[in-house]
């Protein structure tokens, strides 16, 4: 099984990765830290699951001048649709709202389900204090492995 994680928060990335590696064998995890790195990985390779953050920096460089993309995750979904990519995508986010509170994750989820029904598979709320996200993610991967 091949999983792509697109995430710019190092701690979150590492937590997701360790959760996967400690619960599943034979899972190949590929990591990207930006929109551009992620979108290229998505377009060039096939994945069974893509775990996508919503707010992402545009480029990989730690040293960046470009503004971060508030909806980088959504834009990756957009490119996938444009290029007819079929991998299953799960958003994994720490936020309840985006763009200075202008849209809630719930509303964004509804929008994404409507626009990308064949690839977007809902979201997991990542909250370090709770273990819920871990259970959800494990269940999701198990489901996909069936």
């Amino acid at each position, binding site marked *: 099984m091949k999983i792509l994680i697109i995430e*710019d*928060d*190092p*701690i*979150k990335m590492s937590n997701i990765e360790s959760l996967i590696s400690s619960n599943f064998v034979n899972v190949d995890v590929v990591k990207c830290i930006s*929109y*551009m790195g992620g*979108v*290229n990985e998505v*377009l060039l390779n096939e994945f069974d699951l893509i775990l996508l953050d919503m*707010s992402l920096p*545009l*480029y990989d460089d*730690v*040293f960046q*001048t*470009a503004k971060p*993309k508030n*909806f980088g995750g959504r*834009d990756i979904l*957009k*490119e996938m*649709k*444009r290029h007819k990519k079929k991998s299953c995508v799960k958003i994994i986010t*720490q*936020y*309840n*709202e985006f763009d200075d*509170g202008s849209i809630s994750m719930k509303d964004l989820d509804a929008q994404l389900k409507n*626009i990308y029904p064949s690839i977007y598979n809902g979201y997991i709320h990542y909250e370090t204090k709770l273990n819920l996200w871990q259970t959800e993610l494990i269940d999701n991967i198990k489901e996909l492995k069936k």
Partner: protein
Amino acid sequence: MIQNRKERRILALKIRKGKKYSISKIKYNLDYISIKRLIEIIPKSALNALFSNPLPRKITDIDQATTYFINGMLLKEIDWCFLRILKYNEEINHFLKLRDSFETQLLFGNYDKCESLLNEIEIDICISYWGLQAKMVLAELNAGTEGNRMLLKSYQKQAISPNLKIMLYYNSLKLETDIPSNKYDSYIDFHLKKHSSDYSKMLADYVTFKFSPFRFESNFSFDFILHQDFSLSVIDTYIELKKILSILISANDETIAEEYIIDRIPDIALLIDDNFWKKTLDLYSKNSDITDFGDIEFKIALKNLADNEINECLEFTSKELLNKPNSYNLYQIFVEALSFTDRKIEDYLEDGSILYLILSSLYQVIRKEQNHSENIEDISKLAYIFDICDFHLPLISLCYSEKFPNVPESLRNYNYLLNRSYSLHDAIHFEKGKGFDYLNEKKLFIGQKLQIDYFIQKNDYKNSLHLLNVFNDYNEYFKNIYYETWYNRKKLHCFIELERFTEAAELVDNYYFKHQRIFTSLYSQRLVDKIIELDGESIFKSLYIPILFTIYNLSSSIVYDAIANFLIQNNISSVREVRSSYNIDNIEMLCFFLQKVCTINNIQDSPYLRTIEIVEKERINVLTQLKELKPELSREVNVEIFDITQKATVRYCLQNIYDSRIYVDTNGVKKVISKDIGDYFERYINITDFSFQDYSIFTFNKGQEDETYSKLLTYIGYFKPPISLKEYEILTILSEQNVELIHPNKVEVPYSRYIAFQDIFEIIKNQFLFDEDYGLKFFLSMRIRHGTLPNFLKNVFDKHTLVINEGINKVKIIDYWKEKIFDIDKSFLNTSFIKALELFTSEIENITSEGVSWVKIKESEHDRQSMFDISLTEHDLFYNFRNRLGHIEDFDTFIEEVFEILWIKINEVLFKLRTRFTNELLTKYISSIDMLHNEVDTIFGEGNFVFFNDVLVSTKTDIQNAIQKSLNWFNISKTKSIGEIPISAIIQTSKAYLNILNANVFENRINCVEKIFFKQNIKGEYFILFCDFFNTILGNVIKHTEETNKPKCEISITGNEYGGLTINVNNNTAQKYSKNLIEVWNKLLNDNNGNYDASFEGKSGFLKIKKLFTGDKVFQDYLFQLNSEENIFTFKVVFKQKYFAV
């Protein structure tokens, strides 16, 4: 419910005898007819109470009577208003006459007469909110804002009602000449936001509807608005009821019971001399036979215009307007007719009156001149000022039609019903009205125009489009931009409704290409939404779509999607291929696409352009094609190409100064060492046997004299050439076991040579680390410790408004968070929340200070914080002598080798430091954020302050990334090859760098202007030095630039009379510097004998700057000139030569 005559009589008797009765019961339990009959038989004194003092005599009486309200009974409120008006019909009729005269005199500019008329209304009828507003208008016109404010003050002193005070305050604000209408609207928005938790929806509706003249929506709480206004005078009820009814009966809302309202109107139409009621009946009543509204003037004027008899039309309308200036249905006919001629308004009307001002403002708008938006704002402002007069309506209508595709039906209705006649552009009313048959003849332009409007209002877009398509016969009308824009607007509307989106886009694009601009009336959000919905479909095959989105100024992300879809639909791989792969005849469009659509921002999301460098390359390729297609754009294109390359240079340079900040000016250190101990080294290498012993160079450690002295008589060996480490270790082990092997590489020298070596090594090390001009300490201080690192780290928290900086008003912080908090108790913001932030601020300060304290050279054993411990063990030093340095006889090589050893030590420290930053420092920050999270959850309830919690999530990611970025600083700076560079790029680099450290200070706070008149480039080796110079001097500017009065800074670079270069930086500062201090600074900065005293500089950074230039001979001949005058501080440095430039 009291329905019969007997009960009514009993109630009337009760009222007449002065017994207690319930007004509320009368209002809500009696039907309309019963109340109407009741009020006929009760005494006048009782009426006053029943109708909540409808004719107040003093300001103190306004909004003081009791009113009764049950939510959700709109028709009851309307009835109640009707009854009030009916009862006081004579007063209303008198008011209408006097108001007509008032409007006439106002339009002629006869303010004294206006004042008398207003007084007459007050004496004859009553005091009203309308009257107070009118007097404030006069005060503003007569005595300006000062006069308006004085009158407000006087009213507020007299008024008792808090509501009235607020209403008067906002009315005064609305009238102020210097406050544009949109700014006034934002004050209202702010007021509503501020009171969002205190105001109910009803009260918010009241404020919005009452305070803003631009609101004609039907979803306001009109029941509450009418009830609220019932506490004002009957005049105010009358005016407000007309507006509300116009909106309600055009809303097609069944619950409003149009028929119910229409049933009430005949009564009022008979008693009140106001066409409004007659026209309402004419429009909505099935049984009306009222047709004549005395609109003969309008008919004549319209016929003149329709028959293209422009001069006659102008003569007639101007004459009519001079006679009756508030015939505002003629305003637009007049200015439209005028737009066909070369005449001016002055040819018909005298300058200086309000009428002239209104007509000229309308005229400017329909001519759609370059400052169109400002002209719309002008008429909008006039509409706001004169919203107490009916003649403000054509102004509001024109604002609407210029800003939006359609004027709302409620406004059209209101405009039509208030008018003395039919309005010019309202086809529905045109259809219903009689006597306009001649306009139906197709040949007539105006007739056909009205028919098009009629079909559109009937949603018959096919017929409308058909008429528009044959409309081209009237070519002469299209020379007039007003009609041309109208035509395009209507056609756009039809295309959108008929879902012909490509044609809609083509229309807008073509209009833009013809006029090089677009009006808001040709902007359609519906078109945008519809096209976006079709994402990926063949509509994107057309180039019109990305062009349309660019013309519409949509976000880069949306324009990028349009480009990407266009490329995919046309099977084109990149924008640079469009010219060769896409078949297009219209060169203008292709050029627009290349120049304005395919910008860096619009294409940078493309997955095929993986780095910013590739994006820039793509853009430059597109620009080069553009130059070939349109050589006249070469200059503009070259400027952009230069800008891109400059940005790329700045980015590269920034990376250069940003990464690897650990630096020692080894050349400088070497020069100092050579000068100081060159002789010493000579003597050191000459100690080869006991024949030369220079005791003077030895330093003995106290208490070890005997041991050392005895060692002086022994030999020590070094290896020449050095041996392998393994071999060295074996020999050392054997030596420790007293087995001395004779190695062919071993050279025996007296022990005194080793002592001299230790001395020299220490001197070089100290110079390397502590030299004030070139050493590590200087660069650590300048590039990392002072300001840079703490600012950079704290900036993360500052950016998210989580820390309370010194000198920052806490109220500002509270206000910021107040706006982000919804549905929870805000009272904690001032108390527990701000305390939590204060605690967090101090935590962050401490953690940051701790991190910074690690980045320091350890100078004593007691210093436990500093991590730069560069001391060598005895064992290491011994090894270095024997097998690494002892054999070197060339001083330069020796120094280089010592430097290399020191760099290795520094690298070890840097590794530890990076690890400590990543682990310890980051963990401390994260746990502080977590603590704050818990604290705020405790204050507001877990998870309740959603926005704040999300901010903390962002802060966590940001601090991780900031620390990750800062780790790059902790690398040894290698000399990177930067070629020659323009000084402008150095300044840009410095500004970009300081923006990173100081929350985009040069974008958000300080306006920094550069004036560069120096065409030579700076040699690459001086790039860092100049960057350090600008970083320090602009860092000072950031610290000291005045906060309050538009902070600004100017950098000028010029050649000078010596043939050198002058840099002049000035900024406005809140601080004042005495002449003496400036003199001392100048003296010390220009002292070249090394007599300057470090203590004089304080935290000015001047000493740092001086040190930058003292080391290199290239800069020897310079002059500093500091000056401070009238809050402007100037820092000037004059280089009398420019060897550093090429």
